[in-house]
């Protein structure tokens, strides 16, 4: 029983990170009908920003200064000082990735706005490969070890020794941050003018511009928000599994895409739902079955959902009037 609970916890934590990436995919698809394959690479860049930021902090003993500020002693690490440091790094990564997302949209996608959709798709793949291989050149292709900010914190245990469930503070933080960011995004989309503009543009691009909505700016804002979330996901995954390398973005990016399709691409709640389902399913499969096919599960789900219900679990089937 404890095993099952542990798998669920692992799955939810993993699902949270998929959700942050999937949200970017789903928003961009909703607005531009484009599957932004370069999104996985934005996630990777976020992880690297976090890596260099963590290294800088550790090398310049800034983490000790934070400890001093929060706990009154330079060498006393605590949950709150670790969280504060992590939040700083995440914010930095989010800002950097928002900028990167803006640049990608401006330089690679906007010039092709009026071209056939397939051109955009191919460009997206091109941007993805560009980032992967220049990343290898810039950062070196050997995996780098993330300094562990949460290292000295003991996991919380529930239950007695034999059936203990171990909850790491880090996993709780990741899950909590993911949920917080999703709630913030939800608020923006449904309760602000920008959000209304985004929904309008995704409903009908030309009509929205006729109504006076600055579509270019709205699209740029969408890209920036999605990329910021991916950047946050990158940092959080790198903190959990402290190995960063330039090719780390392709598989999680594809899996998050599958999760977005599962939930209904274009639908924000669907992306979140699909991601948690995928995360938990993967954890259960590798725990009770064999971990070798874990990666294949996401793609099997993709094929199944496209065969059975192509609009996704929460997607609404929209007939296109020709």
């Amino acid at each position, binding site marked *: 029983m*404890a095993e099952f609970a542990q798998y669920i916890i692992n799955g939810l934590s993993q699902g949270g990170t998929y959700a942050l990436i999937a949200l970017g995919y789903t928003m961009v698809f909703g607005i531009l009908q484009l599957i932004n394959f370069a999104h996985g690479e934005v996630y990777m860049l976020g992880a690297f920003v976090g890596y260099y930021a963590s290294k800088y902090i550790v090398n310049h003993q800034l983490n000790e200064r934070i400890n001093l500020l929060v706990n009154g002693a330079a060498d006393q690490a605590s949950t709150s000082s670790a969280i504060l440091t992590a939040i700083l790094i995440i914010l930095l990564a989010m800002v950097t990735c928002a900028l990167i997302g803006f640049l990608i949209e401006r330089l690679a996608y906007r010039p092709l706005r009026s071209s056939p959709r397939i051109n955009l798709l191919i460009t997206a793949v091109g941007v993805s490969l560009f980032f992967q291989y220049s990343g290898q050149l810039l950062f070196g292709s050997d995996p780098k*070890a993330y300094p*562990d900010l949460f290292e000295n914190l003991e996991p919380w245990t529930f239950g007695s020794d034999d059936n*203990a469930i171990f909850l790491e503070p880090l996993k709780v933080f990741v899950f909590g941050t993911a949920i917080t960011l999703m709630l913030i995004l939800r608020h923006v989309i449904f309760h602000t003018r920008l959000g209304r503009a985004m929904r309008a543009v995704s409903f009908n691009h030309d009509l929205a511009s006729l109504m006076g909505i600055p579509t270019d700016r709205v699209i740029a804002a969408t890209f920036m928000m999605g990329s910021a979330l991916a950047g946050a996901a990158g940092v959080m995954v790198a903190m959990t599994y402290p190995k960063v390398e330039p090719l780390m973005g392709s598989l999680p990016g594809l899996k998050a895409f599958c999760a977005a399709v599962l939930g209904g691409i274009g639908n924000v709640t669907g992306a979140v739902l699909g991601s948690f389902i995928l995360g938990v399913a993967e954890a259960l499969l590798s*725990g009770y079955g064999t971990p070798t096919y874990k990666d294949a599960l996401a793609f099997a789900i993709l094929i199944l959902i496209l065969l059975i219900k192509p609009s996704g679990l929460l997607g609404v089937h929209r007939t296109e009037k020709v």
Partner: protein
Amino acid sequence: MFLRNFSIVLILAASFGHSSAFADTIKIGEVGSMTGSEATFGISTHEGIELAIKEQNAKGGVKGKKLELISVDNQGKPEEAAIGTTKLVTQDKVVAVLGEVASSRSLAMAPIAQKNKIPMISPSSTNPKVTTIGDYIFRVCFIDPFQGSVMAKFASETLKAKKVAVLRDVKSDYSLGLSDFFKESFIKSGGEIVVEQTYSSGDVDFNSQLTSIRAKKPDAIFVPGYYTEVGLIAKQARKLGIKAALLGGDGWDSDKLYEIGGKSLNNGYFSNHYSKDDQSPAVQSFVKNYKAAYNKVPDGLAAMGYDAALVLISAMESTKSASPKEIRDAVAKIKDFQAVTGRISIDEKRNANKPAVILEIKDGKFLYKSTVNP
């Protein structure tokens, strides 16, 4: 028009410059994983080989000719190792190939070396299948049937472990082979393998496998993988509350292991080819020279690379004209060659019969625990 013709002539002349008709060097090829998840293996091995060749060239080379080392980086991928070997034997026309460390990549290279009749010496591939590919393939290290039994004996006799879990890498021939041999030995000595879990190299999340292992309460966990994954596994195991000892093989040998795994590796033990704390003069002088050249302490891969190069050089010296066939025959005859990691004798299966050392990991240091003779 003139400029075009002139440049064509220039280019042709430059390409002819590659012909080794007037070359005064003996070309030795090397294939290693200088980048990728096992980057430290490739870099250390390369430095060991380079050091040996530099020292030999300082003594005048072999048969009056200098040795030239041509290295190819396979990025940790078997396909690239095969392509690299093809390039070395067909384009660069090397007389011998040194490589690789990882058995999966050696297995990709060996058929090509064998087909082109170029002798290949692997410094540290321990899977027995490598040298069975053909009579031009050799190795200067021990093989996994021995290594598996070393750790099995250590687990049952020293750690007094009765129940062991195995966590192995399905993408690595080394990991699969070593875990099979470990299991065989451990079960024969009366132990029980309580559960076997798998992962793929490149994975970062091992929580599901470790949760399932934790449920079976093993006394020790055997993780015969490569250091990048082992470091992550150790971290995640300790975070799940697993206090059992972690056991492994020579794939753990890297300074990056501690960088990735940190304190979680305490109560970890692995078998290796050499220990830098070995006080024998051969080891200490090698450590000193390596430190002077590369500003760091050599690991087992560097020592094995150095020894593989030494064996090759010694074989070349005993030939008449350093042709690939003669080198091959000379390597096969190597007996009692005093190298850094011990006395190397190449047996009829083209493997070396050597002792293993067991190292304990404590606070970032690899401490020498014991030597096991074959």
